[in-house]
């Protein structure tokens, strides 16, 4: 879709956020984190993200993959580098900074995120 060579000056329009949220069961914190994440992604990354929720109570072995200690932990697997945000994601501003999500409300960005919309599967939750 890219038609200009200035890709690194702004986030590539086809850049995708591959997110993984680790939680422990259906605790208050877990639910809050899931809701917060869904809301923030919808608002700022519409059409350009996927979320995988992993419940470590049910899949303890998966904790080793991303060296999970604190819960909830959100792992941004893509774009690289890997980033981790721990906590229930209640501070939206810090989540946005942590995920390195740029505001796409600008005239230029708004159009692009619309284009990407169709390619993105809906977020899936395993709980």
């Amino acid at each position: 879709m890219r038609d200009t060579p200035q890709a690194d000056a702004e986030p590539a329009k086809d850049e995708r956020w591959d997110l993984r949220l680790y939680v422990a069961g259906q605790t208050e914190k877990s639910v809050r984190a899931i809701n917060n994440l869904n809301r923030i992604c919808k608002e700022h990354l519409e059409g350009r993200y996927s979320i995988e929720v992993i419940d470590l109570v049910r899949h303890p072995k998966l904790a080793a993959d991303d060296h999970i200690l604190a819960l909830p932990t959100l792992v941004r697997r893509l774009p690289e580098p890997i980033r981790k945000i721990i906590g229930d994601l209640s501070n939206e501003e810090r989540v946005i900074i942590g995920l390195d999500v740029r505001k796409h409300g600008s005239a230029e960005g708004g159009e692009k995120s619309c284009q990407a919309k169709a390619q993105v599967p809906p977020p899936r939750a395993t709980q």
Partner: protein
Amino acid sequence: MQRQLNKVSTGIKGLDEVTAGGLPRGRGTLVCGGPGSGKTLLAVTFLVKGALNNAEPGVLLSFEERISEIELNSASLGFDLEDLQKRQLLATDYLHIDRQEIRETGEYDLEGLFIRLAHAVETVGAKRVVLDSIDTLFAGIPNHAILRAELRRLLHWLKERDLTAIITAERGDGGLTRHGIEEYVSDCVILLEQRVQEELATRRLRVVKYRGSAHGTNEYPFLIEESGLSLIPVTSLGLSHAVSDERIPTGIATLDAMLEGKGYYQGSSILISGGPGTGKTSIGAHFAHAATSRGARCLYLAFEESESQFVRNMATIGIDLRPAIEQRRLIVNAVRPTAYGLEMHLARMLHVVQELRPDVVVVDPLSALQASGSAGQSGIMVLRLIDHVKSAGATALYLTVQGDVDKTDLNISSLMDTWITLRNHREASGLERRLYVVKSRGMAHSSDVRSFSIGSEGVRIDEIKEGS
């Protein structure tokens, strides 16, 4: 329900004695110390020995070193952690925390740690747990209030499951640990220290605290060697050794005569003290020669002469040690006292004694070990050597340099069963040597002062003629 304080063997030689049975079962023990003090190896030994000797599988959670690194380091102690994991006697997990890639927003806890620990514990049916080291958590988790609350919960969690745990932490400047872990893990606290004195490194271990239990409060030298970790408490000395009625000749008939005509007791410790050039080595050589001629095995630890020098010098006074060396009955182990640090010296000597299982040991001279450390340190080391040799059942002859006072610099005379002193005696006719038996437990020894000379036929001991 009141419960008696149960203990779990650490599998570390000496530590079980100092802690009167081991670590508190179902509780956390804090092991703190500086970098390189041996915290991880102590903790790993606790797991390995538990798995192999006590049928208690363990879990190792490492926050600092990769499991492969720990496996490699443990291999130097002869531990095969990979094999233990295959046999389901050990589960390991490496929890890496990189502060750089972590941001926090909102509430969280360390449930991930609990889930992983629980999973590992279940996998092998663990009874023992090691968390190494807790400081990395403080570096990785930004909110210390949460971390401290979770640590408290963790200790409670371990207790509920009756898991015996070792938690390691870095030594702090102000308190015992950098982050005050002793506040949470307070049932038993062990401190490891590595000190470098006059360029010689020595490790020390001290049980700082042990709630509800008696424990040794001294600092104990702590060894890390190929055969594992050890700590031989000085206070365990010599009371439980089997006592023998057998006698063995000194190799000098006239000296035997002073000892009821029979010589030393087998398995006893004998001190030969005297100034430089009084003939101590000759008495040692006679003893070694007599023992090997009977077919016994003798270890001669020489700190002042090389093997060839020693053999040549003794040949000039008619003591031919070559056949015994050729037959491997006499093993001369010569090393400069300054060649090693104190710890290595002791480790080496204990190792050689263990390997060779000699019937007879001669240390020439014991006082040379003083060159390897401060008086206090070498004193402790000498005690441990004496203890070890005695436990091994060997008869030991300790030669030591001293002046004309009936007091040894190392304060070991009370540990000696027999003590013979040599001294130079100035006479009008020239320098003469004198010998007498200061003490010899369990026998009616001669209390005469005799003249002592060394000729081409070896040592001669005579009664002093009137008027000489």
